Structure formats: C-alpha cells, structure tokens
C-alpha cells in the first residue's frame, strides 16, 4: 500500500513539473488569503497587476501559494523542488534583498484610521491625545516584530494603550480585523499600512478618516517604495518585467486607484538624482571596504568570506539589521569570540562596514577593491534599485 502511494506521489510530481516547465505561464508567488493584496480567487490588486504584467509578456499566470510571512521566499521562489518554485512576487519593498527588485512602481505609507465622529484629528505621532486613546496596531509575522510607527510610539512612551492585532491565519484576510475594530468602536484609532487601510476603510458603512503619518525628526521612515521582486539570476525576466512596468504604468495606476491605495508623495525619490545617490552609496561601500581590510579581514576573511576564526558574512543566514550589526561590532559577540570595537570604530564607520558587507552578501559587489571591480577594471557602480536596507 505504502509503495503504491509513493509511486502515485512521484507521478503527480512529474505531472506538475511538466506543467511548470512549459515555459509559458508566469509563475507568481502570492498569499492565498491576504486581501487587498492577493487571494486564491485572484481578487487582490496584486492579482490584477500579475495579469497586466503576464499579458505584456504574452504568458498566462499561474500561482505558487504561500502565506506572506517569514520563509515566504524560501518556500516559494527558492523552493527545493523546481515544481514548487515561482519566479516573481508582485509586492516587494524596494531593495528587499532576498529577491531582485525592480524600480518601485508605487509608494505608500502608514496611516491613521479613526471614526470621523470621534471628535479628534490625528496628524502626527506627537499628538498628546495618543496617550489616552486605545490604538490598534498590527504585529507583523510570527516573531512579533513591530511596524515602524509602533516602534516610534513606544519611543514616545505610548505603550500601555496600544492593542496588538495579529496577522496570522486566525481568519482569512487578516488585515481587515483591525479596521472592523475601529468601525465597531472597540478601539479609537488604528495605525495601518496604507494599501490595507484604504481597501477596508472603503468597505465600512461607518465614515472613517484616513490620514498619512509623517515621520518626525529622528524617526524611522513610514513611507516605503514597493517594487516587483524577480528571482535572483533570472536577468531576462527581470528586464522584461522592468519594461512591462514602464509600458503599463497607466494600467497599474488605475488598479491602485480602484483599490483605494493611498499613495505617498514623490514616489521613488531615486529618480531625482540617481547619480548623486549612487555616488554616495559607492563611497560608503568603498570606505567600508577600507575599514574591513584594515581590521575585520583578520578573522572574517578578505571579501567577508570568513575564516576558521569567524563566520562568512556573505552567507544570507548571517544577515543582520544595521541595529544588530552595530550592537555586535560595538560590544563584541555574546560568546566573547569577537572583541568590542567601540574604541576603534565610530558609528559612521560601522554603518559603512555594514553597507560593504551587505553589498557582498547581496552578491552585488564582486570580491576585490570596489574601485577596481567595475566595468573595465574601474569603479564599481551600485546596481539600480539596490540599497543596503539599513
């Protein structure tokens, strides 16, 4: 009996492999229950955009479904079995390093959502009323890391009156619950990522206000550029998606409007002065390379590839946020194997080191001197759309 099952499974796999490899369908990685972004009924705006792009490429759409949380890319685009793999995700933060991101095609922001009859008008995180009202926020993923505005709320001492809403699969379309809670009066206001807020606000019978949250001085950014994410290494697909996005700009914008996505001003600020920004990034990576090859290479190896003394930092599993990178560099590792560098390196140098290591880890910077690994042995140019994601 067992034997028969195995054979059946093998046949099934073969069949789906054949389907996946027909070279025709555009295989999209998407969340099956996450409106307004995507669902299996293909009602989300990302489903619509996938169709626009696929149409431009002259290919039908097929999906690999997976919950959009930690492990999403690993289990879809980079799945072990080729049959289970997809090649594009529609909504990826610009510079998201597990995929190759296109030029951003929209920019949105976190917003306040509250009933218009509440008698207050929320404009910034510094409004004193925020200390007294119940504020709903989303907790992201299963590790309870918080979205940036929540981080900034706690910086302002606003903690006790904050109510967390999870984004797991307790029910379909988890982003809707927080808006329902605002409408029903269970909470006084919510802080929500714009696209989710816009869609569900428009579906409530109670009039709700929706205002963008500006970042104060020293705050984390609340507005983000969103790109499409293409499987790393598939340059041909990347180029055609990039071109399709440019050609289909009006259709894309129409979809965003239809779904009520609040757009943040000045989308894609890169377009303002790409040369200056690229130059700044190059200089940071170059300075990081210098510092690396004076200090860090002794244990972490030249080109950050590691030695028997310390880990390879270009391994994707070793990727850190700038904050944790800074902490380890300044205070040393918990096991005492790495010393504290706070006396020798300042914050700026550590940030430059971070940029260098991230450029190596993202495989955008080849080994060697950054001033000699570019075209014709000249200066390296940071690829368009790449940023170290500090």
């Amino acid at each position, binding site marked *: 009996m067992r034997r028969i099952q195995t054979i059946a499974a093998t046949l099934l796999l073969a069949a789906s492999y054949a389907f996946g490899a027909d070279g025709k369908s555009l295989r999209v990685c998407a969340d099956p229950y996450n409106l307004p972004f995507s669902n299996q009924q293909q009602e989300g705006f990302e489903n619509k955009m996938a169709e626009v792009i696929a149409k431009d490429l002259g290919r039908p759409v097929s999906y690999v479904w997976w919950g959009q949380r930690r492990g999403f890319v690993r289990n879809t685009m980079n799945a072990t079995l080729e049959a289970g793999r997809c090649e594009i995700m529609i909504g990826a933060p610009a510079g998201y390093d597990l995929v190759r991101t296109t030029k951003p095609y929209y920019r949105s922001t976190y917003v306040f959502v509250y009933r218009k009859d509440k008698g207050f008008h929320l404009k910034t995180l510094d409004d004193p009323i925020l200390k007294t009202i119940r504020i709903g926020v989303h907790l992201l993923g299963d590790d309870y890391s918080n979205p940036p505005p929540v981080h900034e709320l706690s910086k302002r001492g606003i903690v006790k009156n904050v109510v967390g809403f999870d984004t797991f699969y307790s029910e379909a379309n988890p982003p809707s619950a927080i808006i329902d809670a605002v409408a029903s009066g269970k909470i006084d206001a919510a802080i929500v990522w714009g696209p989710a807020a816009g869609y569900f606000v428009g579906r409530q019978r109670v009039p709700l206000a929706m205002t963008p949250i500006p970042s104060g001085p020293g705050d984390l950014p609340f507005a983000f550029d969103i790109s499409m994410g293409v499987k790393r290494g598939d340059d041909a697909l990347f180029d055609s998606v990039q071109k399709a996005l440019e050609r289909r700009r009006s259709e894309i914008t129409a979809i965003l409007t239809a779904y009520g996505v609040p757009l943040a001003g000045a989308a894609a600020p890169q377009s303002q002065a790409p040369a200056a920004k690229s130059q700044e990034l190059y200089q940071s990576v170059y300075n990081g390379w210098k510092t690396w*090859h*004076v*200090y860090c*290479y002794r244990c972490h190896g*030249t*080109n950050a*590839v590691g030695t028997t003394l310390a880990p390879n930092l270009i391994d994707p599993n070793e990727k850190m946020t700038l904050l944790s990178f800074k902490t380890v560099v300044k205070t040393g590792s918990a096991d005492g194997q790495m010393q504290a560098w706070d*006396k020798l390196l300042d914050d700026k140098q550590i940030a430059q080191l971070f940029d260098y290591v991230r450029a190596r880890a993202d495989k955008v910077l080849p080994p*060697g001197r950054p*001033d000699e690994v570019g075209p014709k042995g000249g200066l390296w140019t940071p690829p368009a759309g790449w940023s170290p994601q500090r």
Partner: protein
Amino acid sequence: MRRLSPFLAVLGLPLLLAACDKAPVAEAPGGPVATAAKAEDKEWTMQNKNYASTRYSGLDSINTDNVKNMKVAWTFSTGVLRGHEGAPLVVGSTMYVHTPFPNIVYALDLSKEGAPVKWKYSPKQDPKVIPVACCDTVNRGLAYANGKIFQNQLDTTTVALDAETGKELWKVKQGDYKQGQTITSAPLVIKDKVISGISGGEFGVRGFVTANDVNTGKQVWRMYSTGPEAEVGFPGSEETWKGDEWKRGGGTTWGWYSYDPDLNLLYYGSGNPGSWNPDQRPGDNKWSMTIFARNPDTGKAAWAYQKTPHDRWDYDGINEMVLVDVDIKGQPRKILANFDRNGFAYMLDRKTGELLAADPFVTVNWATSIDLKTGKPIENPEKQTSSSKNTKDICPSAMGGKNQQPVAFSPRTKLIYVPTNNLCMDYEGVQVKYQAGQPYVGAIVVSHPGPGGNRGEFVAWDPSTNKKVWGIKEGLANWGGALATAGDVVFYGTMEGWLKAVNAKTGEPLWKFKTPSGIIGNPITYVGPDNKQYVAVLSGIGGWSGIGVAAEIGAEDPTAGLGALGAFGDVSNFSNQGGVLTVFALP
C-alpha cells in the same frame, strides 16, 4: 672563549687544518671583522656566521668543480608547518634546530648516524599570540655562547638553555603580546650580554632593544627607537613627532644584529613608524627607519642615520648590517653595507656613520637618489602616498627591494651576494585609531611583480663601486638568505624549494636540489665529526611572502596578508607547507 668540543680537538682538527690551509681566509685583506679562525669554520655558531654578518665560511672541500655531485646526506622534520626563517647552529658535534611558533628547539647529535635527537625543548606559549604575529609565526633562530643556547620566543620570552641538556637556566619576558608585542628575531650575544629586539610595528609598538645578563637574565639596559633622549640614548627623536605620537611610533627592531669588537659598536636597523598611514604622523618620525650604532655596554648610541624620513611606504628598515673592509674610491674603508627595504644600497663609514654611497639595487621610483650630504632621499612627489588616494605602481613594494633574508660577503671575490625582490605596489593610507594590542596598520597595500615579471633576483654586488656585477632572475621572490664559501660556491634557496649553488665569480649555476617545501631560511655549512663538509638548510614556506600557503589564505583578495597575496597568490602551485631540515654532502 668557547671551549673546543672534544671531537674537534681529538679527531677533526688535523684534517681540517689541512683542508683549510688552501683558503687564505683570515689573511685576506678586507676580510670580515670577526677573525675567521680556521677552527671556527668547522662550526656555525652565529646566525650570520660571525659578528660582521658575512655568512662566509672558509670551508672549501665543496667547490665549484665538485658541488655538482652533492647529495642529500640526511633530513630531519621539525614537526612544524609554518615559515622557517633563520638557520640551525652547529656547535661541536651538536646541531641546534629551531622552529617557528611554538618555538621548539632540537639538539641533534651529529656524532651518531642519522643525527638522533639529543634533547628537545618545547616551551608552552598561549596560542592567542599567533594572530598578533604580523607576517607569519616565524623565528630567525638561536644564539650560542658559553655553553648556553639563547632563544627569543613569539610571546616575547627570552630564554637561556643549557646547551648540553636543554634545561631552562633562566627566562625573562621582554613585553606583552596582549599589547601587540612579539619577538621573531634571533638574539645576539656580546660579551656578557644577550641583545634582543622586539616586533609589533603593525600594532603601534614602540621599538626597543634590550640587553640582558647572559648568566642571570637580568636586564642591563633597554633603549627605545623613539621618544626622549634619555630613553633613546640619542637626541633628536621627540621633536620629529606630532604630540605624543612617538609613544606608538613603531621603529621596532625585529631584524639582525651585527657587532664590531674593535669599535665596540652594536649595529642594527629600526623599522617603520606606526601607523602605515603617513597623514597621521607629520614630521620625520625619528628614529624610525634608522641605522643605529650603539655601545653594547651602556646602550648609548654613537650615531644614528635615518634612511627614510616620514615613511610613506612601510620601508621597514631592519635589514642586516654587513661589516666589511673594502676600498671605496681607492681608499680602504671600514664600511657598513645595508641593502634597505627602500631599494637603496647604503654604504656608510661604520665608525662615524658618514654616508659614502647610496644607490638603487632594484627598480626604485619613490625617490630619484639619496643626497649624500644631507643623507635625505630626493623623493618623487607622484609616489608619495596618503589616505586620500590609492597611489599606484610604487617600486619597490612594502615587502622591500630586499626583506629579512641576509646577504653574504666573500672576501675572495669582494662581492656581496644579495637575495632581492622585484616587487612594486599600490598603497592607500587609512585613518586608524590606536588601541593597545589592536592592529595599527592604517594602509591597504597590494604588491605585484615588478618590471619583467620575475619576482626575485639573486644579485652579486660590488660594494666598492656600489654596482651590480651579475644577477640570476628568479620566478618568486628571493626570501631565503645567502651563503658564500671559500670553495667559491654561493648557495641560496628559493620559495619554490630549490637550494641552488652558483659560481661566486660568475653566477654560473652549478647544482640545485628541490627540498620538500619553499625555502625562506638561510643555508649554512660546517664540518661533521666525520670530517666531511656539509651544507644544511631549513625549508618551510611562509613568512610575509609565503603567508598565503603557511596560513592557508587563498588568492581571491590581493590585499590579504598585508598585500602579499597580490604578488604571491600562486605560491601554492610550487610549494606546500613544510618544516624540514635537509643536509647535503659530497658522496
């Protein structure tokens, strides 16, 4: 001073005297300062053979006619696989072999077949000292005097051993590796004092030389390269530094030591100033990069001559001082010859420090010449490095026109045999902060082969004209020392592992043998208890040039190993790690 060991007195002497009579060694005008007494040529009791550092032996049983028949007599594995610099010593019927870290000493009994181990000394050192060594965990050998073997260990311990038993007689710590201090150099015994240097120029260590009592280890004096006159034993340092930069100003003393008994002067060179980024240390940075002549009784300096003021290239000036008497411009002079890392061959009057000649012995473009009146280089502004740019194609490289590999001088040909490097570099300073025990390098350096592509050349140099007489190009750098003999054969090893014998007069190749690993050590010659002349050399790739193989670093990044991998990424194609003594004789 030293008692003759029984076998020499009883067995060897008559035959050897007969053999040596053919070579007019001691009588040769312009011979080395230390008298080459015939009996002494049977042994090899100092790293560079004698106080004058000539690495010349009066032995001539092996000569230009018969060297082609030379065969391996026996071999010995040291059990250590890092770079083997320096040379074994032969005292009486015992050979003393040293190793890189962990700095083992073996006494081998030459009177028995196959030279079995008489005793083995294995010091215990903290392995944390390994990464503090700048350029491999090398050691340049032992010193011998009055029945004692002296050794400097990587963790800065100086130890005296009973030469008969290997028992520790005393030991002292010269520094603290946690502050970046290490020792790789060989000690030198002068009268009742053992002289030791210090390494750590890459850690901002302030260089010094120490004299310890040979019988007790008690420190007699210590003199620094930088700082106040009282601590340097010579004026003029402190005012050439900004603020208190001299406290971390380098000028370490990790090279060789020579001595002139008639003038009672000890000679050695001080190394690069710290850090390697010149922008951080305005001024001449005295007395880094300096030839010192000191009174070994008091440590006070008779004179000091700075070769590379305000170094911008890491031309670490520690190479050996060869004390020879030759005619310069028709006048007999007592000179000190120094083939510096910066590519110039300096000839000085060793009594006064007067600069007699300075000429490039390899491709040099950082300076056009040395002004003999002021002693200062005429620098090429295009090759002055800084932290604001990557200065390209500077010759020679930081690894030097010559590195630690000692030269030899033959009083018969009056030529100095110089193992040289043909390397250039790109150099970029980096602003660095000082923290005790942390690297204070402050530059990114990539070395690459110089014009012609050969990375080394073995050169015969005429000190009286300060000109090259002949040269033998080598594929890799010449990182091993030279040996000259009265048989008019000159020996040297290569990084591929060849030990080569060439004609001292013409450079004609006479013989070669490929040893198990690359040679960065120095060949010696001696007479065994069987009255035969032997030639011995340590092989074991490593050192700065061979660090890639020794420490198993790949060649993906040319800046690795302080820039060595740029020039020597391919060494592993020729030679693997090793640690073997190979001893040769005529059949």
